[in-house]
């Protein structure tokens, strides 16, 4: 499929997504789509660090929560517009990401992954015990008039859909740009073989820090959106390790290190969990989760390159699929 064919497909997809809330007026499908957009955004953010750059992190929730809490606290205490709060949240997340990355990037593979889990748990526990920002009770965001500036919509909830879509498109666009740039090449070189990359002049730590900065910023973006959408946040909803794992799962199922993997993974996984929940979840018997878990196993066994591998025959991606991330890179001597 040539460039023009791909562009046509993209335009078609865009048209479908824009028209969606007008065709499906019922709030439920719209809300499912918003969740898909959010997870696709978070998974793409994870993909930047974990997929392209090969540093598998299980701590996305840290940045998600920072985004959510920063904008919410600023809005609650000083009436700061959530959009400014979003930028502030992104900035803080980037700072924290550097503080985490600088000492931890000397760790490889599993050691790094566990460190990120640990940091996530620490941050969540701190948030639970920090009463000034609500502690375990969380924060209820004050209801404000429904305007774009206030980033709240009550009767016109479809506006959330378009905001989420716009944010997702922005993140995807930026990621596509990075993929073709020096950053993209260096990230992938670091993932494939850090020693060879170094011998070609790639400064490892600097680029890993850039990757985690981008990942943190995008994730925090999602956090602010979530806070404004749900209008209630607490440590359990925005900082849990289970969220980090889910984000990673979405990216992996879709296809690690590919541009469309996160979107595909989110679409399939969220639809799957919604469907099983509706059809089988009500009994509280967890049958839906059994099927969910079983399907994850099946996909891992039969399509380990992720769902993008199935669709991949439609056209060559500029970056090529990763021989995805080895989590442990045993040290070899040169």
């Amino acid at each position, binding site marked *: 499929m040539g460039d023009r064919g791909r562009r046509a497909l993209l335009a078609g997809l865009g048209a479908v997504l824009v028209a969606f809330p007008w065709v499906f007026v019922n709030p439920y499908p719209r809300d499912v789509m918003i969740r898909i957009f959010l997870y696709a955004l978070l998974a793409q953010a994870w993909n930047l660090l974990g997929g392209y750059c090969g540093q598998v992190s299980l701590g996305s929730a840290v940045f998600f929560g920072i985004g959510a809490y920063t904008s919410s606290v600023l809005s609650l205490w000083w009436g700061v517009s959530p959009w400014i709060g979003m930028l502030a949240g992104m900035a803080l997340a980037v700072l924290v990401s550097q503080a985490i990355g600088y000492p931890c990037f000397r760790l490889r593979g599993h050691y790094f992954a566990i460190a990120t889990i640990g940091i996530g748990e620490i941050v969540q526990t701190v948030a639970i015990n920090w009463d000034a920002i609500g502690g375990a009770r969380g924060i209820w965001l004050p209801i404000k008039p429904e305007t774009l500036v206030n980033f709240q919509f009550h009767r016109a909830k479809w506006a959330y859909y378009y905001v989420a879509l716009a944010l997702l498109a922005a993140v995807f666009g930026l990621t596509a740009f990075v993929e073709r740039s020096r950053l993209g090449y260096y990230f*992938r070189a670091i993932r494939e073989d850090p020693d060879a990359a170094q011998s070609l002049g790639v400064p490892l730590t600097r680029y890993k820090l850039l990757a985690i900065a981008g990942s943190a910023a995008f994730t925090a973006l999602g956090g602010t959106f979530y806070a404004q959408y749900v209008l209630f946040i607490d440590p359990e909803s925005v900082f849990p390790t289970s969220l980090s794992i889910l984000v990673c799962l979405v990216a992996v199922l879709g296809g690690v290190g590919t541009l469309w993997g996160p979107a595909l993974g989110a679409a399939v996984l969220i639809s799957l969990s919604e469907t099983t929940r509706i059809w089988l979840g009500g009994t509280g018997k967890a049958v839906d989760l059994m099927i969910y878990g079983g399907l994850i196993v099946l996909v891992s066994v039969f399509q380990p390159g992720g769902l993008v591998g199935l669709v991949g025959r439609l056209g060559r991606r500029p970056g*090529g699929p990763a021989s995805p991330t080895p989590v442990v890179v045993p040290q070899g001597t040169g």
Partner: protein
Amino acid sequence: MTKRFGGLVANQGITFDVAPGEIVGVIGPNGAGKSTLFDVITGFYQPDGGDIRFAGETLTGLRPDQINRRGIGRTFQKLRPFNGMTVRENVTVGALARAVSTGAAHVEADRCLALVGLAGKAGAFARELSTGQRKRLEMARAMATRPRLLMLDEVTGGVDQRSIPDLVALISRLRDAGVTLIVIEHNMRVIMSVATRIVALHLGEKIADGPPADVVRDRRLVEAYLGAAYL
């Protein structure tokens, strides 16, 4: 320069100079410390004693990427292609060390691929290449960083006989392109035909250093490398 790993002395007091335009061959039996020497020079290990100087600057204490920026490129004995990337992308990574934009890097990458004779394989994934092709890919990749000194670790290892003359010609082409070369090699015929000087290592020490014709007649070297039966 001296390098120890615990109780094992991999490199003991090795000293030699390399002048611009030379092709220095480094030979020695397995375990002589050749690859360790390369690893120390390129910053993957820090020496326990001694110093590495390049163009008037000391390299000791620098990271591998910093050393590359100062003009030293290398290949690896155990090949390390970026498997998930195409041949062209592999070389582009190297080219980005000097290029201002990815566009310029692509141009440089194509130039280096043409130099090593892999232009036809630019779109293939690195993992699809044969051993000989991968060796040339590593050379192209390292050349793309525009080094002044290029260190080749095992050029002909694992390559079939027919391809060797091409590789030898390639080494000469690289030198003609203005690069000084240090080459680790086991194939004596290759070394004899390209090297301007030979440094021989044995058990971590330098046992010979001079023009090929002289070194090959050195008694200690022949005994160490080929065995006393050859004397």
